[in-house]
């Protein structure tokens, strides 16, 4: 924010977190703040804290009864969402799924906050994205919070950019999966080194939409991409577009 004195970066951050939580920002400022969420878990935690801190204000709003069609529609949608072929990984993912206050872009930020612990967290740099391109983002995190990876997707180019990551190897390589609503993981390929974008096969691009889950498993690099994951994911996250 240009109008905050440069000597108060903490206050500046905190104000930005509050502004994002209140949805006060638009345009470039909003996009920048959302990217900060991806690169800085402490910032993401501050955004969620603001959102929850002010929630009691909403108590002042009178209640209203929605029509019956709302529940009927919810029921139909969650019925459809329940996958016929529930794979093991899909079942496990319930426990792995990164949190989210909502599927909105701000929620993508809030989704990052899981048992927040600033001491253990590496701070991955945000993936480079051109300012003009529409992007979808996800931050992948594991249950232990020991590692986090920021992922940005440029749907125009079909490119996934993955932030710095240092996943334990033991001869295995991180393989990225997209898991859409049917619960079936599709391999997006092995993650290359930091800064090397992953080209998504055209057939898989439609799956990279808001709310889809991304997951990383450790796989044998020689036989990748695999038809299905061999183990449980080490990191998962949910896609949201900016």
């Amino acid at each position, binding site marked *: 924010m240009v109008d905050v004195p440069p000597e108060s970066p903490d206050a500046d951050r905190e104000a930005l977190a509050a502004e994002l939580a209140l949805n*006060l920002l638009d345009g470039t400022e909003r996009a920048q703040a959302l990217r900060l969420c991806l690169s800085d878990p402490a910032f993401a935690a501050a955004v969620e804290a603001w959102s929850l801190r*002010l929630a009691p204000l*909403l108590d002042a709003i009178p209640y209203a009864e*929605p029509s019956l069609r709302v529940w009927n529609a919810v029921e139909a949608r969650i019925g459809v969402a*329940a996958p016929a072929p529930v794979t093991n990984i899909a079942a496990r993912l319930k426990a792995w799924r990164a949190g989210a206050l909502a599927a909105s872009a701000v929620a993508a930020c809030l989704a990052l906050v899981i*048992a927040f612990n600033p001491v253990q967290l590496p701070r991955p740099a945000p993936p480079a994205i051109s300012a003009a391109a529409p992007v979808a983002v996800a931050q992948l995190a594991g249950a232990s919070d020991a590692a986090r990876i920021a992922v940005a997707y440029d749907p125009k180019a079909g490119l996934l950019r993955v932030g710095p990551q240092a996943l334990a190897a033991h001869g295995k390589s991180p393989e990225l999966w997209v898991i859409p609503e049917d619960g079936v993981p599709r391999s997006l390929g092995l993650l290359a080194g930091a800064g090397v974008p992953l080209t998504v096969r055209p057939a898989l691009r439609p799956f990279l939409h808001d709310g889809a889950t991304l997951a990383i498993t450790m796989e044998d690099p020689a036989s990748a991409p695999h038809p299905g994951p061999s183990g449980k994911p080490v990191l998962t996250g949910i896609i949201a577009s900016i």
Partner: protein
Amino acid sequence: MGERGGADQAERRERLSTALRQTASGDASALRQVYDMTSAKLFGICLRICGDTQAAEDVLQDVYVKVWRRAGAFDEVRASPISWLAAIARNAAVDWKRAHERHAPPTGDASLALIADDAPLADRLLEDDQFRLRLHACLDGLNTHEADAIRRTFLDGLTYQQLADRVESPLSTVKSWIRRGMMKLKGCLGDG
């Protein structure tokens, strides 16, 4: 609220937390219970921010589908269940508003009136009196401009620019109201 009300509140909150945990394990009847306990409140929020019944119902539908998918993220240590749900509803409604207001004129002034703190309300048993009272006490400690700016932006989902237009003040002025107000609020709430 009396002692009895306090006990009811605690019990209802616990029931809602339990229903959310069961929802996270894939129990659709638990989601229905969450819906029955909270849909009137969340619909009120969506309606207020969207300003249109049809849109608010569409947003509400999305909200419960999100709750279904993400109930596992609810952590009662960090948030009361109703605050968590209300924040989801507000975010979803504001997203809708942002996506649609470019094409639609702003809603009429009637919907923008500030709600007084003592407005008569429906069932409040889910809500957390303690947090609300503390928040309102802290808001009372701000100057009128700051407190009103925060209430209006939060309850109506306004951007800085929209707030500046509404109150006919310069953008930089409303920005500093909000920022100063928010920092004071944080200090007052003492939850750092």
